[in-house]
């Protein structure tokens, strides 16, 4: 304590960056997310704001909210999101727990495999489940049974979506388990705790903040997701709010104010989910003092190894291998009606991707560049925002925090409209609109929630005493962020970066709307190439994206930061 008093002056000086960092974080968040969200809000209230006019205020509200089916759709959205979040937690927790006990090498393999779902666009995933399980689907052609009855039901949708989204929770919580380390468990074991007791009484409460915050993301993502409910839900009359929003975008008449009004419902739902998450998080908050990042490896018994293999094996089979195989086989089928047979195999769709000279490669390099920049930008901004929200705790940071989940709560189409309304105004001296930069802005806006959630959760676990020690030794904010927190957060930041990269490299909906004339990304290229074509072509595109982005991610995993979670302080 005397030391603290002695250097208090220096520490205070070192902290003079505080307002600046807060201002920078706020400015970035407001520009990237706040403005487009404000535009959507204004569009809902003033249906002619697109012509820069405040005429006919509030006229779009009532007609859209009076829809009798809306209540049912809202309830469906809620129950779907709750179901998917719960199932995702149940799937992810045991895997994440075991992952933290594994050797780096073995764990890295499973991590790489479980990143694949992020690379699969949800609608392609849903289509592949349909292709696999429907009447006369692959399972019926090969094994003589179909699961159409299950697939087109509430439990079916929940399962398909949870299999797609649970890796989000897995990545966040496995990092949290790793941060806790094995010591607490070891202590409990010495005192005779059973494995289940140790898990339920020690580890689970400690990762609860992370579980809650990644669960929030899954909840919000489910509310926003369009592909799966549209493809599977329309089979048994299951309508959610996003389905209703998309009808206003789909063909004619186009009703942008109406879509904005319905988006408000989603924003409200996200807000309530966020509040609930905050209350729960406050009740169960935990910080790990005295953590050991480098958990001393314990010898793993053969039985345990077998159980792990079974656990991860079945998860990977369901969430990765089955969809991937279906996508791969579909991409190789010449015609849809030809079914599974050798003489229906062809490289036509894969070859078709590369017929327009150079354009395919241009699209691939555009997508990869944008995805890489989006990953770097998103993670850098997220580190700043996480620091501001968790460590500064000044007024207004809660707003920043809430703002940071909004892009996930609203359909990509609505976000794209918000971005056009924001950036297509003549009064900006310079604008990214109508240049490829608008895609980067869109990707960062759409993906920021992931790194922000993951990093704030991880930062909450890092004890403040680390910062305090640095401040006392005379370090400033920047130094603390760059030299202490960033290296400690590196594994989480890298994992978040991969997720952003994966999602940005395949993003379709907002790209279709925002790409300037003549610029194509992988997703829009293939969408255009096979506009009226068969879904096999879409499957071929997904396969290529998964292979290209997937191999970049595997290479990226060999970066030093991910291998050494203890982080060198140089």
């Amino acid at each position: 304590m005397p030391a603290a008093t002695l250097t208090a002056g220096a520490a205070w000086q070192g902290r003079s960056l505080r307002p600046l960092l807060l201002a920078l974080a706020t400015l970035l968040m407001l520009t990237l997310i706040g403005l487009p969200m404000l535009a959507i809000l204004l569009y809902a209230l003033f249906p002619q704001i697109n012509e820069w006019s405040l005429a006919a205020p509030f006229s779009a509200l009532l007609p859209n909210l009076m829809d009798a089916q809306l209540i049912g759709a809202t309830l469906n959205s809620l129950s779907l999101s709750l179901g998917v979040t719960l199932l995702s937690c149940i799937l992810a927790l045991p895997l994440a727990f075991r992952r933290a006990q594994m050797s780096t090498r073995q764990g890295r393999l499973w991590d790489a495999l479980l990143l694949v779902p992020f690379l699969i666009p949800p609608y392609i995933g849903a289509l592949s489940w349909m292709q696999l399980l429907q009447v006369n689907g692959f399972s019926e052609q090969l094994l003589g049974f179909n699961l159409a009855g299950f697939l087109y039901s509430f439990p079916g949708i929940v399962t398909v979506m949870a299999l797609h989204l649970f890796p989000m929770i897995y990545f966040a919580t496995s990092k949290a388990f790793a941060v806790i380390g094995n010591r607490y468990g070891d202590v409990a074991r010495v005192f005779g705790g059973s494995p289940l007791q140790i898990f339920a009484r020690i580890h689970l409460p400690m990762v609860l903040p992370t579980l809650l915050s990644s669960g929030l993301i899954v909840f919000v993502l489910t509310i926003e997701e369009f592909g799966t409910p549209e493809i599977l839900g329309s089979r048994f009359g299951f309508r959610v709010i996003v389905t209703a929003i998309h009808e206003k975008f789909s063909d004619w008449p186009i009703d942008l104010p109406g879509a904005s009004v319905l988006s408000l419902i989603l924003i409200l739902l996200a807000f309530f989910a966020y509040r609930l998450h905050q209350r729960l998080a406050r009740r169960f908050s935990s910080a790990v003092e005295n953590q050991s990042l480098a958990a001393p490896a314990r010898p793993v018994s053969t039985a345990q190894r077998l159980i792990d293999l079974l656990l991860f094996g079945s998860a990977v089979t369901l969430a990765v291998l089955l969809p991937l195989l279906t996508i791969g086989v579909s991409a190789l089928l010449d015609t849809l009606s030809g079914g599974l047979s050798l003489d229906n195999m062809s490289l036509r769709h894969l070859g078709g991707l590369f017929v327009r000279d150079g354009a395919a490669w241009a699209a691939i390099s555009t997508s990869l560049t944008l995805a890489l920049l989006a990953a770097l930008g998103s993670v850098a901004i997220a580190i700043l925002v996480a620091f501001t929200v968790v460590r500064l705790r000044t007024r207004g940071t809660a707003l920043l925090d809430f703002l940071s989940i909004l892009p996930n709560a609203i359909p990509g189409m609505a976000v794209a409209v918000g971005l056009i309304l924001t950036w297509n105004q003549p009064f900006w001296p310079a604008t990214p609109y109508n240049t490829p930069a608008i895609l980067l802005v869109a990707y960062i806006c759409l993906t920021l929630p992931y790194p922000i959630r993951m990093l704030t959760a991880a930062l909450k676990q890092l004890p403040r005493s680390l910062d305090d020690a640095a401040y006392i030794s005379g370090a400033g904010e920047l130094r603390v962020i760059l030299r202490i927190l960033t290296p400690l957060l590196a594994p989480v930041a890298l994992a978040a970066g991969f997720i952003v990269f994966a999602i940005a490299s395949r993003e379709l909906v907002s790209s279709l709307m925002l790409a300037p004339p003549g610029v194509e990304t992988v997703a829009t290229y293939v969408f255009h190439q096979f506009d009226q074509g068969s879904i096999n072509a879409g499957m071929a595109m997904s396969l290529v994206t998964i292979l290209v982005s997937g191999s970049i991610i595997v290479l990226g995993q060999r970066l030093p930061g991910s291998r050494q979670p203890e982080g060198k302080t140089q």
Partner: protein
Amino acid sequence: MKQFVAALAVGLVLATPTFAAEPLVVYSAGPASLSSALAKAFEAKTGTPVEMFESTAGKIMARYQAEKSNPHADVMISASWGHALTLDEAGELLPYTSPNAAQVPAALKSDRYVAQGAAALSIAYNPKSGLPAPQHWADLTHPSYKGQVTMPDPAKSGSALTLVQGLVAQDSANAWTLFSQLAANDLLVPGANKAALNPVLQGAKGVVFGAVDYIIIGAKAKGESIEVVYPSEGTVLAPRPVMILKSSRHAETAKQFVDFLLSDQGQQLVAEEYILPARTDVPAKRPGWNELAIIDFDAKQAAEQATATKAKFASVIAK
């Protein structure tokens, strides 16, 4: 040294802004192969580059609407006739009648917009399904098709909406009975056009009620097992409207572009996609104008009742 000076001169010439024509900005709904072929051909012919924004009909409209305070598009080619009616109603279209539009049927043009081509709505069935070949819309209410028929959702597909409007305009009572009988026969309404077609190609279902014909003809040409049928009692067209926007800053070039779309060359490119060319004197690569029985109805009047029609359809199907 000489070489250096020459290189410098060439460099200077290249660096001076050339007074090339400003690009024409076109927003076009798919097929993208058609849009890019048209853009290239127009540029080759006139020297004016075309900046083509290609997307779905819904997305080009959404982009145009969102851009209104600072518009960029000069010409729009939509796949939904309703878009032309809406924009015309709002007074956002520039009046222009192309001299090349003389051979376009009166129903497919006005002083402010004109069709580039049209699709016809059809029954599409998979011969592998083992079902009897259907000939009429009402055939699909027969028990032998029970649980085998899909239809694009009029709420998500403009062409399916046109079909409902057309059949209702032809004989209202008859049409609604037809739809409720289809519903009783377990009609599946899974989403937009592709969502209705895919299960039929994959063999999970057998027939599409209201398929966009040129997509089926294209799929068949690629080897899919699928046949197209035009019921003799009549079907409807889903025309693709071409519009010049009042906000266009290149109105003269835009008019040239519309002339080009309706020229022999432009219309032949349309025919290549198995779409019915708007001009009746340009040969189609699929059943042409004189081979189709088209239901004649007032599209404008139908558009005014579109919301009610969609709601009624949804309630009839839900039963």
